[in-house]
Structures are given as structure tokens and as C-alpha cells.
């Protein structure tokens, strides 16, 4: 009703004059929006990386589970590649909970939260599968190693020892035993 009494030009002038008072606030809002958008983009990158990593780890875990009986140590075949993956998963294990905690209130949607949790779970499963894969080979090798029969003979003697102490056990602090005071 009010604006209808003015020409289009006058309406614009009134609007501009009124708006001027809000310019500082507007700039602040725009700046915040810009920051938000930047953060959101970074966040999108993290989400994308998470999604890719989850898929890669899932594939690798399946591969390891299928080949665990193959009896070949990966450290002999693809050492640098697998070492890199293992290092990455270790970092993730520590990084993800912190990241989730910091961003949860701001930008993480329920779906993304599930995505991160999924990565955490597959990371753990991957580490387990990778250890099982490598250890199966290591144990096999160890049991065919030099002096295994003698080791078994000593273990047989240890297995015959009773469970009731016959003599008081003197406790020594481990720090002292390691040469620390």
C-alpha cells in the first residue's frame, strides 16, 4: 500500500536508503556464508574421500579373506602398497572419531555420520583381515623354522609345572628391571 504511492524510482530510493543501514550486517552475513560454503566444500571432499576409501578397503578386505590360505606373505609381494594402506588405516582409526566429534554439531548429517561409522567398521575389519593374512604365513614359517623341536621340548617341561606357588615371589618393578629409577 505504502509503495504504491511512489514511482518505481522513488520506491528503489527508499529501499536503498533503508538498506544502507543494514549494509554492515549484510556484509557480515555474506562473509559468514562464504566461510560456511568453503567449509562445506572441504567437508564434501572429506565425504567423497571417505566413500572412496570405504569402497577400496571393502574390496581389499574381501581379497584378503579369500586369499588367506594362499600362504604367501603380502610383505613379500606388495610391501610398499600394503604398508601404505596399513599406515593410512592407523591414521584413520585415530582421526575419524576426532573429526566426527568436532563436526557433528555443525555439518555432519545423519547419512554422513553413517558413512563415517561404516568406514571405521571396515577399517577395523580390514586390519583384522590383514593381520590374519600375514600372521597365518608368519606362523607357518615359524613352525618350520630352526630349532622348533627344541622349543616344543622346553614347552613340554613347562607344561608339567604345577600351579600352586611353593616359594614367595619377589616382586621387582618393571621400570627398575629395565634400568629406570
Amino acid at each position, binding site marked *: 500500500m505504502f509503495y504504491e504511492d511512489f514511482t518505481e524510482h522513488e520506491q528503489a530510493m527508499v529501499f536503498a536508503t533503508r538498506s544502507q543501514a543494514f549494509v554492515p550486517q549484510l556484509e557480515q552475513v555474506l562473509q559468514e556464508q562464504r566461510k560456511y560454503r568453503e567449509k562445506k566444500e572441504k567437508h564434501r571432499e572429506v565425504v567423497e574421500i571417505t566413500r572412496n576409501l570405504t569402497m577400496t578397503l571393502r574390496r581389499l578386505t574381501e581379497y584378503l579373506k579369500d586369499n588367506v590360505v594362499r600362504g604367501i606373505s603380502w610383505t613379500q609381494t606388495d610391501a610398499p602398497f600394503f604398508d601404505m594402506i596399513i599406515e593410512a588405516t592407523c591414521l584413520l582409526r585415530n582421526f575419524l572419531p576426532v573429526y566426527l566429534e568436532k563436526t557433528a554439531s555443525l555439518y555432519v548429517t545423519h547419512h554422513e555420520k553413517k558413512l563415517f561409522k561404516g568406514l571405521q567398521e571396515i577399517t577395523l575389519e580390514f586390519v583384522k583381515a590383514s593381520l590374519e593374512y600375514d600372521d597365518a604365513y608368519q*606362523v607357518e614359517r615359524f613352525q618350520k623354522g630352526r630349532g622348533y623341536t627344541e622349543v616344543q621340548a622346553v614347552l613340554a617341561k613347562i607344561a608339567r609345572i604345577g600351579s600352586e606357588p611353593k616359594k614367595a615371589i619377589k616382586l621387582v618393578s618393571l621400570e627398575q628391571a629395565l634400568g629406570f629409577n
Partner: protein
Amino acid sequence: MALTEFVTPFCDAFKEDFERLKMDRDPEKLRDDLLEALNIFKEHPAPRGDMVSALQYSRRTKGYLEYAKLIEYEGLTVFKIRCKDSSNKRAAQGAFRIIALHAPNQRRSFLLRMYAKTDQSDIEPDELLEGLKHALSWLQEHFGDQKKKKK
């Protein structure tokens, strides 16, 4: 149970290993890494299941301990424990290996050897003999032979 009640005095081979590792690392960090690993191991010396490897989470230290069963013999288990190296910022997979014998009847563990994966990739059974013999004589001295006792 305190750690001192769980881990018995070290054998010479383990002491020598520790001294060697201490030479080019921060000794206190090395000690802390070892004690942290042993504390989780003390909580879970018998991982569930028939798996060769075990991954154990500790709520207290908020960390994982990774270990594998090298030998299982009439309840006795020789473990290979992975331990991190804080001095060189290495995660457990690429850092130290601790070889330990766990005797569940006596609720005791014996540290047999400790080495860095970068120096030595594997260990041969005969390298554990000295530590095992030390464990045998210590157990015989403090617990005695079961069969002799029955007679």
C-alpha cells in the same frame, strides 16, 4: 593384578634386546611403549577364538593391541605382540615385535625377545630358547614340578 605380578623378571636375551633398542631411541618413550603394550596384554592374555591374530581394544588406554599366536602347546601360548615406536613415530605394524610366553596356570608371562621390524623381519624358534629355558627354571624354582608333587 599389578603388571609386576603378571610379568616375571626378564631373561638376559630380552634385557640385551632392550638395551640395543634403547641406544638409538628415546629410552623413556621406549619404556612407555613397552609398558602400554604389556598393560593391554595383561588385561587380555588369552584372546577369544581360534584366530591366529587378535586385535584387542583397551578402553583404559583407548588403543589397540595386535598380537598373533606363534605356538600353542598344552595351554601355553607363545605370542608375537606388535608394539608401536613413539621415538620414530611408527605405528605398531611397522615397529617393535615382542615375543612373550603366557603360562595361564601360573598366571604369568615371560618376555622372551624384543626386536624392531626394521632390523629383523622374522624370528627363528631357536632364538627363543634362552628365554624359554629361563622361564622353565624360574617356574620350577617358584612353582615346582606337578608330577613330583603328586609322588
